[in-house]
């Protein structure tokens, strides 16, 4: 039998799919549509959940929370709503309720993947509410459920160990993550963990090799200086820090800086003993929303210098 010409087939596919084309609306219109459906007696857990997501996108957390509670009234085991609620409550400064919602998400999860994801969420919320030990347990349970894990899980695992002052365990976790995922973020975090754990000798050759192939070197110059200082090579370290600051000055937008670069500059100042400048950058990075781990090295350097001063 003769084959249909290609163009005719294409027209067919267009004709067949036209009637069921989805309409595309902006966020406010989506909310109006969901509201109309909810108010016309078609309310469901999914509809309330979907409206909650749109409210969250529009930065209206109270309305989003109300919708998530409504979703869970329709279906107490609706996992996506539990997950969304846990994250929202944490952002709204309700850590205990957030942890409770994350536990519900674990209970209601439909498969191992979801359960492991909910465990990680719980670990984050526990850490944020000052329970790093419980958080670590939850994180490790997630790894047991889904052994290869994900890039972010290894970072979380290492972060929790840092909170528990178990820095010496961090390099192995991050090295395992790098081997499992190839993520460069885990490789770099592994180098940072080696430096934090005082294993400067292991870190130095990797850092020097990395430095040779870079276009923008500030973050690696910092790592280099930290290793050199750890090995007592102060003069070389100072030169490296000066070069680091020179590059950062060109990269930091004077009015609207990237806070990761501000944290780097603060650390360079601290390692050079310029405490005023370092403290100012620490304040700026925090004000810009830097997470605790991003400024951890800077804070540690500042506290080390103050200890030396006190002696």
């Amino acid at each position: 039998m003769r084959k249909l010409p290609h163009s005719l087939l294409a027209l067919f596919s267009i004709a067949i799919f036209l009637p069921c084309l989805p309409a595309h609306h902006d966020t406010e219109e989506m909310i109006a549509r969901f509201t109309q459906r909810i108010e016309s007696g078609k309310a469901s857990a999914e509809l309330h959940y979907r409206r909650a997501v749109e409210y969250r996108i529009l930065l209206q957390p109270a309305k989003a929370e109300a919708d998530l509670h409504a979703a869970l009234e329709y279906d107490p085991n609706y996992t996506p709503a539990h997950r969304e609620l846990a994250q929202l409550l944490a952002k709204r400064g309700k850590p205990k309720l957030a942890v409770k919602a994350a536990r519900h998400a674990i209970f209601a999860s439909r498969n191992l993947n979801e359960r492991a994801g909910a465990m990680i969420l719980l670990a984050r919320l526990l850490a944020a509410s000052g329970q790093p030990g419980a958080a670590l347990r939850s994180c490790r349970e997630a790894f047991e459920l889904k052994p290869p894990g994900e890039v972010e899980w290894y970072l979380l695992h290492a972060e929790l160990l840092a909170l528990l002052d178990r820095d010496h365990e961090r390099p192995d976790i991050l090295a395992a993550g790098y081997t499992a995922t190839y993520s460069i973020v885990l490789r770099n975090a592994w180098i940072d963990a080696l430096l934090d754990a005082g294993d400067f000798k292991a870190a130095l050759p990797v850092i020097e090799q990395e430095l040779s192939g870079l276009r923008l070197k500030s973050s690696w110059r910092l790592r280099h200086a930290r290793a050199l200082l750890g090995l007592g090579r102060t003069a070389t370290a100072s030169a490296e820090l000066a070069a680091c600051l020179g590059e950062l000055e060109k990269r930091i937008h004077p009015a609207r800086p990237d806070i990761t670069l501000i944290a780097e500059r603060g650390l360079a100042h601290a390692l050079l003993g310029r405490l005023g400048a370092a403290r100012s950058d620490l304040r700026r990075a925090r004000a810009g929303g830097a997470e605790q781990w991003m400024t951890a090295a800077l804070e540690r350097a500042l506290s080390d210098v103050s200890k030396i001063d006190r002696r």
Partner: protein
Amino acid sequence: MTIPPLLKTTCSATALLLIMLQAVRAEQPAFSRAPYLQLATDSSIRIVWRTERAITPLVRYGKDPVKLTGLAKAENIIKRVTATGESGSPPPLHSAPEGTRQFEATISGLEPETVYRYAIFDGKKRLTPDDPSYRFKTHPLPGIPRPLYFWVVGDSGTAGLNQAKVHTAMREYNKAKGAQLDLYIHVGDMAYGSGTDTQFSERFFKMYEPTLRNTVCWAAMGNHEGKTSKGADGSGPFYDAYICPTTGEAGGLPSGKEAYYSFDFGSVHFVVLDSHDLDRKPGGAMAQWLKADIEKTKAEWLIAYFHHPPYTKGSHDSDKESQLIEMREHIMPILEGGGVDIVFTGHSHIYERSMLINGAYATPTTAKGVILDDGDGDPDGDGPYLKSKGLVPHNGTVQVVAGHGGTNVSRKGTMPIMRRILVENGSVLVSVKGNTLSATMLNLNATVRDSFAIKKEGIIEHSPIQDPWQPSAKKETKKPESGKVIKEGKPLPPGAQRIIDHSAQWRYLAGGNHPPKNWTTLNFNQSSWKQGAAGFGYGDKDDRTELAGMKDKYRSVYIRRAFKLPDGANPAKIGLAVSYDDAFIAYINGKEVCRVGVDSGSGKDAKGFHSHEADKKFEFFPLDKKAIGALQDGVNILAIEGHNIKVNSSDFTLHPALLLVK
């Protein structure tokens, strides 16, 4: 039993449709997803296809189309199926139809910058035709400057006519120019409404099939794909469809995730981000990877793309929506601190293209202190945007929102950093040649609607412009009370024939009188009406027939004119080109055929007017379908009533022409 004629027609049409569909079914296609290319590098490529039945897959390839001497054997081709196989087998497909086999052949050991032909076989049976379009070209070696030409599409996945037209427009434009794409980037929303496996097949793979067989599409995930696919673990139909680099195999640093990655094409470095469902904060893994990746690249050009635009007032608002705000506040500082040249996004269904900007991270976005060059960037206009050679931090970025690839377009307001705002479907074609990157926005009729370029030479130092050029604000139009959508004109189609010329003579009634009801019909006696050349109006110096007494006296004008259709003209191709202020209703032989800016009623009873400035511009309005029925051989009458929103308005324009488009 007698069958009514209409039903008879419907029945025979249905029968024909069924016969045709059966024909398609009887000739079961070799592929349920035709072959497409993925993950090109300077020495390798992946060829992916799907079948619904078992085959013995083989790929033959070679530089000489007659002798495809290279061979990828079945044992070197990954086969993925819907159900989990024994342990160690490739990951199962997320939700493909039962019985689907997806084959992923890796061809390696290739020469850089080399064109190869390929063919797919089932054992000895060749499944792809002997056609030169089944080819691939390897990338140049990293760092080596080579010309690059690529296509940018966003928010296309409807399987509708506009998506098809945008694709055809690109192909025809390239054919006319003798240009071939090196790659295709998609900024997300390629399979509405939920990025399901079937939606991917119908709304992406089928729609772009002739392009995908020889051009790699490097994709960023949109929110619609995010309904079924997850960036965190790379699961779902999106990640079944695409093979993205995770170990730095295409250039750049290993991300460990398919959701965000980078790749090189000679001296151009691309970074692709997931703005939908991953942490967008500066401390998140994605931002850390981004920072490390762009610190390492030594490319001459840095191009970034993702779905959610940091700057838009199209169908979405980047001052109000969290994902867009976060991409601007957290990701843009990293990109600009690494010297990014251009950022492509979608999500907002519009084309918006910025001036040369830097440091616009505040919310809401303003133009204050962030515009480095407020020219139009057009080499034939104000000239290209200038930047320093290489990648220099904070030396200027152009933002392009290309969410106009097929779905309905709309505009909420005016983003002050934008230089060009176009509410129409289309795509963007980008060429990088030596020290210049040039881009054009091609609409669905293959018309170039915007052109700009970035040129890199020596050391260029910019400082923000104090009082930069600003785009004209979107006109505030109140929503029609009736809930009707206000019709908006389209750009004039090129090469149209004029049935009634722009300067034609018309009969007109002005002065505050309203005509009798039959004024739009052929038989109406118009002898008492005045005669004048179009256009009609006052106040804006664009009128051939000046209605000097209109202001403060009356607000409606009626015009009519006879015309004949050219021999053999297709009535469906007739439309009005009108420059108007504020509203009008057009009739052919007594039937209303086009209503713009009037909610209800007509003549003295017309109500609900919407403000519109003529701006000396003509807009095109295809006629309503009923116009086709109203047209007749011989003489026809086009009658138009024009209305001003207020009697004391400063200007009025009614300036029509009647066109026959190609």
